[in-house]
């Protein structure tokens, strides 16, 4: 029972209501018409609401998760992949179940049988795409599949958001996502096209549109989410990433050019007498090394962008006008964890994956807080519409980063 967190004792550990340093929880606090019964607003604006900070804790352990992960991986292999949805759901359930806010954990309730049907459909389409993309006579099939995917991509994202939300439960209440498909075509279709057409100039704007779409249409019970963020910080994140990329490129590129020149000088610049093979080999090696360095650099910078936007989103998210999340994790620390995780996974042929996942979640979640001006047990439930597992399967199998 060592790893078991007793809900009752955790509830007792709830920190005493501490008046926060002056920042009341925002404009919605004065008008709590969003589904939560808060008594504070009635007192008028003079009475600053009492802000309670609820720490978020993560109780997953690497050893425990390793056993779960490898047993489910083995079952997936033994069943030729048919068990995959059950494995994925169980892995995710472990992380949700070990994430606690104010003494209560989250729960992931997706039905693996429904996921299986969608996985099979998406897998079959992908296989058809790969097989026909090489063929001359059937090439149009792959083009058709690609066009279908591109055209449906925003719809799939909306479906995936809906599926993920409705299968997330906390304190017996489900989350919901009611973003309209039309808005998804703006945030994930038009915005991405604009980002591509503008040569990346509009990319941070696309990130902003997407995060706003995700948060503004999220509901917990009947309380509505709100993204209070702005576009400018997204551009700041992108500029930081670009600067780091350029700086590191210079830092690595200049010595590389010096090395090439030095090598040429050692050869006495007698280009005519240069051993063709030697020069060719050196060139190939040089280009390959530069390519790998560039890839690693790009990966590092991308990790930074993801972590930094995640922190910004968490710092700008609000629920029902009474709850705000906050994040204090350092994006560069997240980058370091991701890079060292990747190395560990490579060296252990993937066996370190569970440890890596736990390590990352632990660091991210220990830097997340939930602040509220009303008790967390006063949210009211509401009904949600139907949801399809297809979007979830497509986004998960095709590894579309939703950045959430």
């Amino acid at each position, binding site marked *: *029972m060592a*790893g*078991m*967190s007793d*809900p*009752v004792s955790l*509830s007792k550990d709830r920190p005493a209501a501490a008046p926060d340093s002056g920042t009341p929880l925002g404009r919605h606090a004065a008008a709590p018409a969003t589904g939560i019964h808060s008594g504070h607003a009635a007192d008028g604006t003079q009475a600053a609401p009492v802000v309670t900070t609820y720490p978020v804790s993560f*109780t*997953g*352990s690497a050893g*425990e*998760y*390793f*056993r*779960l992960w*490898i*047993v*489910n*991986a*083995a*079952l997936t*292999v*033994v069943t030729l*992949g048919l068990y995959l949805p*059950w494995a994925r759901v*169980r892995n995710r*359930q*472990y992380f949700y*179940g*070990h994430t606690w806010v104010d003494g*209560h*954990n989250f*729960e992931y309730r997706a039905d693996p049988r429904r996921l299986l049907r969608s996985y099979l459909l998406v897998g079959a389409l*992908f*296989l058809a795409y*790969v097989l026909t*993309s*090489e*063929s*001359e*006579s*059937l090439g149009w099939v792959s083009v058709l599949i690609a066009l279908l995917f591109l055209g449906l991509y925003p719809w799939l994202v909306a479906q995936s958001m809906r599926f993920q939300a409705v299968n997330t439960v906390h*304190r*017996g*209440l489900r989350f919901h996502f009611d973003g309209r498909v039309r808005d998804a075509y703006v945030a994930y279709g038009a915005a991405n096209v604009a980002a591509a057409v503008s040569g990346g100039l509009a990319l941070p704007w696309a990130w902003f549109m997407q995060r706003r779409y995700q948060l503004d249409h999220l509901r*917990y*019970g009947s309380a509505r989410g709100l993204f209070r963020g702005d576009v400018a910080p997204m551009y700041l994140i992108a500029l930081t990433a670009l600067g780091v990329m350029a700086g590191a490129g210079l830092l690595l590129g200049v010595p590389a050019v010096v090395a090439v020149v030095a090598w040429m000088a050692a050869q006495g610049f007698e280009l005519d007498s240069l051993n*063709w*093979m030697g020069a060719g080999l050196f060139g190939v090696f040089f280009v390959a090394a530069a390519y790998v360095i560039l890839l690693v650099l790009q990966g590092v910078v991308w990790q930074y962008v993801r972590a930094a936007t995640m922190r910004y989103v968490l710092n700008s998210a609000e629920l029902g006008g009474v709850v705000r999340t906050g994040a204090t994790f350092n994006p560069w620390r997240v980058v370091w964890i991701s890079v060292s995780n990747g190395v560990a996974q490579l060296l252990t042929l*993937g*066996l370190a994956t569970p440890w890596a996942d736990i390590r990352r979640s632990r660091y991210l979640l220990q830097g997340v807080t939930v602040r509220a001006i009303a008790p*967390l*047990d*006063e*949210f*009211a*439930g509401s009904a949600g519409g139907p949801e399809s597992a297809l979007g979830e399967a497509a986004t998960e*199998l*095709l*590894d579309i980063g939703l950045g959430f």
Partner: protein
Amino acid sequence: MPGGDSWPEVPGVFFDGRSSRDHPATLHLEPDGVRLRLAGRADHHWRAADVTVDPALPGVRRALSFPDGSRFETAEHATVRAWETRHGRNRLLGGVARLEASWGAALGAVAVTGALLWGFVTFGLPALARQAAAVTPQGVLASFDREAMRVLEGQDLIGPSGLSAARQAQLQAAFRDVSGWAGGGYGYRLLLRDGEPAGGVGMGANAFALPNGTVVMTDQLVALARSDRELIGVLAHEAGHVTQRHGLASVYQALGLSLIVTALTGDVVSASTFAAAVPVALVQGGYSRAAETQSDAVAARYLLERYGTTRPLQTILARLESAEGGADGLPDLLSTHPGTAARIEHLRQLEDAAR
């Protein structure tokens, strides 16, 4: 139900599903259902059939949910498991949870996963690839040849042949006989090319076959041969690769491998780049030992029919191996380098068996 207090009861927390409020509660696990006891409220009873028990997860409290959307959560794993077993719930996932609790099972899972993946990659995948290659319609093959030739010519790995027209005609005639004998309705053609168009780089003395019957032979290989029979032996060997569809099988094998890597890492982007790499794989990828042996057997049959001996192929294999030290890149004929001696021995045995 009288005597309800003798049934196991577990402390926990109850959510009514309509608000986020947590109510401390106890649940009595009775044989025919469960009874919820909330402070200051009347007991509520649910029949066993109406109770959903979520599968156990290590370290996570158990949840029982009820038809009205309410739920009860408790940390008393053992008691819930006993009730779950008695009512035959979560048989499969309960078993999975028991496996997940044991380090022995985890080690076993590592062994099983590793062994199955290794076995599939070394035995299952090649067999599947051969099957897929055998049933691939012939119309698909031509595009493979076209793409591979485009890559080869684009990379300056081969250039126009420097052989005289008369010499080329001789070799073309020899190839017509080989391809007519091999049959199968493929688009056979022999391309004579310079293997070192840019000086020291290129493929050197080499010959290789593409799926639809395009066979490329370099001037350097022609120069290396001491008789036409040696070259005819090589051409028959390449025709063997065509009729046995070895090139296509190796493409499928690489495709399967990349799909497995995709499934394991969840990375589709690297798998998509594979499609672009197919022509390169066709040219650079060597065949398996088994494929070379099969093609040698085809060549041996042709040579024995025409000349009664497999010696020409043996000699050029031996000469290629001794010349290979200076050449760049592994010639197709020697792509499974350590086996050259064994291949020569195999050809000798085939000749002995024919006598």
